[in-house]
């Protein structure tokens, strides 16, 4: 789960990592009302769960009161890579002397916690990695060992920080970020830029945090940070119903058991000339409710012209799936055509139930996909 900048900064504050003074606003009027006259310059930052906000014009430096209205007008409702701006963080403007990049990520490739540092902060790290890989320091930290003195030595060597007071501030922030990764099950914590400002203070000017979804149930008092603003309402409902669902732009709705098989079903639709409308994994359980909820969600997507079931029964029993379809057909009044491929555990019983519904049953995955694609062509 991605956190908004302002949510990440709240966590920073909890861990005593310095952040600028600021406040989050949910409407232009609120912001306008509450801004003090004598705090300029201020920075207004659109809150969206996607990178590249700066380039898209989502960050405004406001130097005097006369500029506020147009800046906020501009920000609220702005569209950044498909995300509508509904929240704006307003912060004090600061005199930046130097910018750094600092992040910790759970690295699935090296199977370590990787600390990434650069003295060229402000730029996206992927861009920096391509343009100037020499400017980046990557350190793999074994979670059984943790941060040790030599990691700090290398950090200070790379960043050329020599001042004792600055060193102490950086050392503190580095330790706290690592502690956050461990205590909050983070996949990523990034500060870019981490800045030295006037008065030799080190401060986090931005935050990017990704929490491990599997870790969230183990975190206490974390509810205030949970948000699914990057999900469509269909995706959110699917999540609540225990389904894995990702909306796409095609017109063939898919209901599959298992993530790999679901991706392969999408790929095969494309391969035979169709366009999948979604990824949907009903998982390993045989609960008919899951099938009903899945159909409900697909029904809401007006692009969906045909629904394709691809079920390979293992733990999942085919008769349970068939019963789910039967109940849904009766309750939901589904008028979209349905193609079904059903094989594995209790296949015979399942097919018998479906036959009574006059549904189109394919004997193989390929046959089912081809049928679904051909029905779109009509």
């Amino acid at each position, binding site marked *: 789960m991605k956190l908004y900048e302002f949510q990440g900064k709240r966590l920073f504050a909890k861990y005593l990592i310095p952040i600028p003074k600021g406040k989050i606003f949910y409407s232009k009027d609120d912001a306008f009302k509450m801004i003090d006259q004598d705090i300029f310059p201020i920075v207004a930052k659109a809150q969206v769960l996607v990178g590249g906000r700066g380039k898209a014009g989502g960050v405004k430096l406001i130097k005097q009161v006369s500029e506020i209205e147009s800046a906020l007008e501009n920000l609220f409702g702005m569209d950044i890579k498909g995300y509508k701006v509904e929240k704006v963080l307003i912060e004090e403007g600061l005199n930046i002397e130097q910018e750094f990049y600092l992040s910790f990520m759970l690295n699935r*490739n090296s199977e370590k916690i990787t600390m990434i540092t650069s003295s060229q902060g402000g730029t996206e790290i992927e861009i920096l990695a391509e343009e100037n890989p020499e400017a980046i320091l990557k350190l793999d930290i074994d979670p059984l060992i943790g941060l040790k003195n030599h990691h700090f030595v290398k950090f200070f060597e790379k960043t050329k920080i020599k001042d004792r007071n600055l060193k102490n501030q950086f050392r503190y922030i580095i330790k706290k970020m690592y502690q956050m990764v461990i205590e909050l099950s983070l996949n990523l914590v990034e500060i870019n830029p981490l800045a030295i400002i006037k008065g030799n203070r080190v401060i986090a000017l931005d935050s990017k945090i990704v929490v491990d*979804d*599997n870790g969230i149930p183990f975190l206490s008092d974390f509810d205030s940070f949970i948000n699914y603003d990057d999900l469509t309402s269909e995706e959110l409902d699917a999540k609540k119903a225990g389904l894995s669902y*990702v909306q796409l732009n095609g017109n063939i709705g898919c209901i599959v058991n298992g993530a790999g098989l679901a*991706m392969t079903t999408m*790929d095969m639709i494309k391969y035979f000339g169709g366009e999948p409308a979604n*990824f949907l994994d009903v998982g390993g359980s045989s609960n008919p409710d899951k099938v009903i909820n899945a159909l409900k969600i697909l029904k809401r997507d007006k692009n969906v012209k045909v629904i394709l079931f691809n079920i*390979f029964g293992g733990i999942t029993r085919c008769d349970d799936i068939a019963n789910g379809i039967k109940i849904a057909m009766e309750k939901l009044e589904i008028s979209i055509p349905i193609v079904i491929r059903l094989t*594995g555990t209790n296949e015979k019983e399942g097919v018998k139930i479906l036959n009574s519904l006059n549904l189109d049953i394919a004997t193989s995955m390929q046959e089912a996909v081809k049928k679904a694609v051909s029905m779109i062509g009509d």
Partner: protein
Amino acid sequence: MSILLNKDTNVIIQGITGRDGGFHTKMMIEYGTKVIAGVTPGKGGIEVAGKPVFNSVSDLKKEFSVDATTIFVPPKFAADAIWEAIDEEIKLIVVITEGIPALEMLKIKNYIKGKNITIIGPNCPGLISPGEAKMGILPGNICKKGNIGVISRSGTLTYEVVYGLTTAGIGQTTVVGIGGDPIIGSRFLKLLKMFNADEETEGIVLIGEIGGNDEIIAADYIKENVKKPVIAFIAGKTAPKGKRMGHAGAIISGKNETAQAKIEYLEKAGIKVANLPQDIPGFF
């Protein structure tokens, strides 16, 4: 010969009294697996599927010799169950549970480095050596004893592929579902080495997907070391960037993690990549 598991392997079940644990214990026994006992803290003394239940693995080990454990414990206690199995020096640990935090697996992975312990999973269907034994939830009836090793990051997609092989008359030495999480106990490389060393295995099927770089590492290894035919399949060609596709590990975080990039890399290494699952048997 199969890898990791055969009919003589002494298998235990951690979380045997749970709904899934109990059901699959029965299925494993029916298939011929030598399940000797189970563990559920606080439930010691009862029986499940005719097998005694103990409070802890160490209690169980006082009465039985153990080669392998299958973990069906719910996410909240699953990592602790793995640590217990490691502490009791069980050599093969198969973790079916979905929902273990990646950080916990990261610690476990670093801890077992250099130790003679193999972890399969978590978030995996387990493994089966057809005609011998199975650990986990893979359906036995779709498999057939034979000479192809199968390694897969997926569950039902593995069934689809194995069923296709069996239907085409091609049997398997062992089928291993390595799991859909970002940090898993055994990556492609480890199992490739085992299949490569196994004399009875004459060919290998490798089922990958988007996310991570395991397929890339596998390709490098195969190119240099594997003389047996290897057929790959990569799921997720139509998956969008940055979206988690069901599996915690199935997410494209960089341009090298797309299905296309992986397929290209595998093919460059001289490995055949099937377009559709049903094409796989035709390659052998």
